[in-house]
């Protein structure tokens, strides 16, 4: 099978790698580059465990080919904390018990983080809609919604 050389920037670090045309972005991140935060839950774009940001937009990295991300800026859950300090969103997830097994959490955080950039004063209904593409089997979502709402409140106070 032919191979392609691509270049992607992940959380600010540039990587050069060689991939098969069919290699998924999530596989390149996990298996080639060691960013194992994004998880694979369904391979059909339904569960959202593999959600990352590409050039500022959330994408499900199991529905993207690595070659499509050539030249892109990718952000993953590993980039949310700043030098070991959790982001406000991560802290609120812990405080509100917004995770149990943690498998959906990286994707959930990326969707929520992106959403809060676009809507800094969301209703609970808007929050639920924002994470509709991220399935969680453990929490029943309520504490996740609480955590996102509390982050929005905190960011609102800081403005």
């Amino acid at each position, binding site marked *: 099978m032919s191979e392609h050389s691509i270049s992607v920037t992940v959380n600010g670090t540039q990587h050069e790698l060689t991939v*098969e045309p*069919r*290699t998924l972005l999530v*596989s390149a991140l*996990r*298996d080639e580059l060691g*960013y*194992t*935060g*994004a*998880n*694979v*839950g*369904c*391979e*059909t774009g*339904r*569960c959202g*465990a593999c959600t990352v940001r590409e050039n500022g937009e959330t994408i499900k990295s199991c529905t993207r080919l690595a070659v499509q991300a050539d030249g892109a800026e990718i952000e*993953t*859950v*590993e980039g*949310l*904390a700043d030098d070991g300090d*959790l982001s406000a969103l*991560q802290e609120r*997830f*812990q*405080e509100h*018990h917004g*995770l*149990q*097994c*943690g*498998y*959906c*959490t*990286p994707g959930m*955080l990326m969707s929520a983080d992106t959403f809060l950039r676009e809507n800094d004063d969301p209703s*609970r209904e808007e*929050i*639920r*809609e924002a*994470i*509709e593409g*991220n*399935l*969680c*089997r*453990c*929490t*029943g*979502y*309520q*504490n*996740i*919604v609480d955590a996102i709402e509390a982050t929005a409140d905190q960011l609102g106070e800081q403005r």
Partner: protein
Amino acid sequence: MSDADADGPTETVGEVRADGGSSDDSGGAFGSAIERGEDVPLLTGSGEYTDDISLRGTTHLAIRRSEHAHARIEGVDTSDAEAIDGVIAVFTGEDVVESGVPNTIPTAWDLPGLVQPQYRMLATDKVRHEGTAVAAVVAETRHAAHDAIEHVSVEYEPLEHVTDPVEAVERDVPPVHEEAEDNVAFDFELGDADATDEAFADADRVASVDLRQPRIIPNAMEPRAALADWEEATGKLRLWMTSQNPHLHRMLLSAGTLGLPENKIQVIAPEVGGGFGSKIYHYPDEAVTAWCSMQLGRPVKWQATRSESYLTDCHGRDHVTTGEIALDDDGTIRGVRVETHAGLGAQLSQFGTATPSYLYATVLSGQYTIPAIHCRVVGAFTNTTPVDAYRGAGRAEGIYVIERLVDVGARELEMDPAELRRRNLVQPDEFPYESAAALVYDSGEYERAMDLALEHVDYDALRERQRELRDEGRYLGIGIGNFIESAGLSPSGLAGDLGAQAGGWESSIVRFDSTGSVTVLAGTADQGQGHRTTYAQVAAEELGVSVDDVTVVEGDTDRIPQGMGTYGSRSASVGGGSIARGAREVREKARRIAAHQLEASVDDIEFDEGEFHVAGAPDRSLHIQTIAHEAYLGHDLPEGMDPGLEETNFYDPENFTYPFGTHVAVVEVEPETGEIEIERYVAVDDCGEIINPMIVEGQVHGGIAQGIGAALYEGAAYDDEGHLRTRRMDEYAVPHATQLPDFETDNTVTPSPHNPIGVKGVGESATIAATPTVVSAVADALEPFGVEHLDMPITPESVWRATEGDR
């Protein structure tokens, strides 16, 4: 099951409270809503799940599965697959047989007359359900392995199949297994048939319901995975896997499957992304992964795809039931009679026999005094994915039946369903209560929890509003679900009497080191429950140290010598009970050292927040962490005492624990469109003493979500070819955030009198409660249409069909 309680309660812990808050007024570690220590790695992406782990030279396994529901294997040709670039080896069922390993996937629960057909790692003669493992390909890359399985050529002679448990035993179909010509694996009875017949003959009224409890697919977010590393030089197998019970997996792999002694198998469960039952079982796939590594001498990794999860993770439920309830006009329940066909799937899974028998029939008394109960369960082989315990396991199915029966009984009597429940509740002074379904309930304040739940929704006013809205052509429904759970599996002797092939105890080690920090090694295995936090709270409370001083280790059979695992709502009660008992032994040894060094009698040494002091002389004291140091120095210990400060504990519970509570759902149903909106969901749970209220609430939330999922959205289905129709996440409706409401939770606290820390457990409670509660609410909303019951999942279509007759 009265034997377990024959000696009566050994210890009474506290008293009943309905404060919903901390169960420890002293402000100690136990009872505080402290944040979870396990969260930071999971929030930053550094937590390691099985597929995140790689070893040098790791190869990849893909499994060829049958596309037929039922077929004879005529031949398997692996040559094309072997020719694929990167393929290392292709193995068939015959290869496994020839390797000489025991090659059985054993069941762990026997029943009288049980037919136990052969269950092998890879099929050799027949495939019995779609997804049966037929061949294994190991390749240098995952892509190559998956490419190659498509090139394994299997010649089949298709056979007629059956997927429905009633048809399997009543229709003339080829048997799934030759050993069971009628497809009956077991025919189980519990209770007193004659007494029940008599109760029905004498009763004023009888109501009945025919119902189905469809298959639920657990859908842990992390699909199952395994990484095996066989070290030829030492003859040792290391196996990382998505396990709820690594020690049980070690035992089953060792004895029946691979033929290795236990001390040559290390099972490691790293971060595990949810389980809900599905990761309890000893499946062929993980065993094949290990076997392949043993053949090749290289690390082998298998990661299930989601489709493989749907086809191979044990499904839950699959019951077809007729239930009857006998009542007097005043609302007294006289008897309950239940007949169930339970689908077991194509093979007997580990607890696949226990779940629809003892775990099911024994809870049919629910919260009620019912003098006569009889239940018959026919366990049927079908050409489907094996069925086993899914969150609530057996108890969920049983409580669903009794709660539906109480509702249809109330309808028959034209009595308010809350009132009928109230008139039959077991009263606080009746505990320990021996039910006609053979359980001895430990403790309960059922009416208190029910009152609290009804108070939260202002029940009488709500009924009034329901009447008003009906006049406007709007259909509000109020559903009540009273539940008990037999949790804390299980007293070993009792479980053994009933057929268990393993013990029900739990084991732990509590260890101080010389610097005064504590390590707890626990035999349970977390998949999101937060054991590292709650166990630290239990140990910290007993030892008088800070939670931060305690590190909890789970999920590695080489580090934790013994354990049984996490299922059946057992970790807090049985695992936590073991840790508390071990910590108390550690504390008592420390007390003896303190007495020696303070030159006082042991009886005069008091313990308060980590400090040992001489009674009446508080300045003469030593902290337990100082004593830990002394214990390892060994310079000045009591005569004859061994150095060190650690204890290994085995705790075998004397009875199950019985969490209980009442959930109430308020729904509005739109008959024109069939839409169901959950307006409110109130859960009052009593799980005994509460170690961490935040975690308890989280368990309740998640449990409700899964219960609502079963009631309204989920359910696996097979097509006419015996193919699973719901095999992807866009075909099986795991609830989304927009499909669930906010839940309102509260607690009462009725300690378990026999548990060392008074806890009852909460892992499965809310799933057990939520399913009947929501179905009850929808049926209540549709009362004006004469609808008594609708089968799950209650979709808009089923509502519309049930009400269309009136249009």
